[in-house]
């Protein structure tokens, strides 16, 4: 069991800056995020998009913002637990025991939920029968490409993942690429390559079609696709792959007994604590009168929540406000030599 002062759920900009504020006031924290990297929406949804409303930074991309925040919390050596998700919590003598999907356990007086609009999960096919084959022959990510050798594969999607895998798998498999419109949003060089492969009959491309259903007994046998006019056709296949990007789902947090209002968690604006003692919510996931879904609001919320955590983590100490410009203690925490 990992013992810590604060567990932060979500490694977006809000969670990362809250970690910084915890470090400044001398608390330890651990960070859990479902993605395989730090940065949350900034890194997953818009790494290259410029952001113009971070105070004192006229323009930066989601990736630059993330990298700077990571740099800013480096001195504290906080541990992050990526590609994992918090699952259940249990109250134990004024502390929380938090279990993750991968089986990690944390013991902490404070949980800060900085989960944005939820954890990222692959968008799945709408057809019910896909569930029967999910993880075996209907897949949303690829762990071992060798399983497709000499097999028939139908790939759905028009972005980079779909195109890259269509190109890669066409070397050793019979690939059909299906997309709902004529244009592909993947990198131009990949789109070019797909056209080449299509001309060389190395791959079949069916645009203006989407999935209708899959069928098979023990194993997947066919996939049925349809166009907008409702006409459908059936393709024999061993595997169906879907690359439709990621969706965000609140997931198990919904079962923690927190008040929930339209996918957000109401908090007080003094320290952003929820209706549960020692559970705080900051960033896009929290709501209060006047709430703005801005990164800068998340920073403010994180700073105040950090102070809220202090009283549960150090019940016998009095919190003293200190400036980073003048406090020797704070400077030593961030490794600045006088």
């Amino acid at each position, binding site marked *: 069991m990992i013992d810590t002062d604060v567990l932060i759920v979500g490694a977006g900009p809000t969670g990362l800056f809250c970690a910084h504020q915890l470090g400044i006031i001398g608390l330890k924290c651990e960070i859990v995020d479902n993605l395989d990297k730090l940065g949350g929406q900034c890194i997953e949804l*818009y790494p290259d998009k410029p952001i113009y409303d971070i105070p004192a930074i006229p323009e930066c991309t989601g990736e630059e913002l993330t990298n700077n925040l990571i740099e800013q919390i480096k001195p504290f050596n906080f541990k992050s637990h990526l590609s994992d998700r918090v699952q259940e919590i249990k109250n134990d003598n004024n502390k929380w025991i938090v279990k993750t999907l991968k089986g990690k356990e944390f013991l902490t007086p404070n949980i800060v939920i900085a989960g944005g*609009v939820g954890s990222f999960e692959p968008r799945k096919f709408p057809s019910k029968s896909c569930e029967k084959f999910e993880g075996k022959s209907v897949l949303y990510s690829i762990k071992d490409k060798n399983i497709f050798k000499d097999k028939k594969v139908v790939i759905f999607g028009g972005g980079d993942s779909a195109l890259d895998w269509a190109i890669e798998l066409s070397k050793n498999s019979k690939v059909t690429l299906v997309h709902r*419109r004529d244009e592909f949003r993947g990198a131009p060089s990949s789109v070019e390559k797909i056209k080449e492969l299509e001309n060389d009959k190395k791959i079949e491309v069916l645009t203006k079609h989407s999935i209708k259903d899959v069928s098979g007994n023990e194993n997947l046998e066919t996939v049925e696709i349809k166009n907008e006019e409702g006409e459908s056709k059936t393709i024999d296949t061993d595997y169906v792959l879907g690359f439709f990007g990621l969706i965000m789902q609140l997931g198990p947090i919904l079962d923690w007994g927190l008040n929930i209002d339209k996918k957000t968690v109401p908090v007080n604006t003094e320290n952003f604590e929820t209706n549960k003692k020692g559970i705080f919510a900051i960033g896009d996931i929290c709501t209060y009168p006047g709430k703005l879904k801005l990164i800068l609001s998340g920073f403010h919320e994180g700073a105040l929540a950090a102070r809220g955590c202090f009283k549960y983590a150090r019940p016998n100490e009095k919190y003293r406000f200190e400036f980073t410009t003048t406090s020797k203690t704070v400077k030593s925490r961030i490794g600045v030599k006088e």
Partner: protein
Amino acid sequence: MTKIKYVEYSGKQHEIDVSNGLSVMEGAVQNDIPGIDADCGGGMACATCHVYVKEDWFNKLPKKSEGEDDMLDQAYEPNSNSRLSCQIIVSDELNGLVVHLPEKQI
């Protein structure tokens, strides 16, 4: 104020006065119309404010912005009548616009 009609997948209709300058998505969210999630808050970073607009109105709307179709690829059951309602800004010209909500957003 401009009248926008939101038709839920079940057929239930909501006719709402929406202030010019707001997006069709904001009109729905501010009036608690079920069926528009708008997870990203209007940043065109998700596809959970997806609506269908029939041809008569579709062609009168301002053209899709760059990247809108890319996001729509990730919507639930998109078709050629699909739009992201966060990208449709309400104005006098849109008085009487009807948008149909999909069965679900994700």
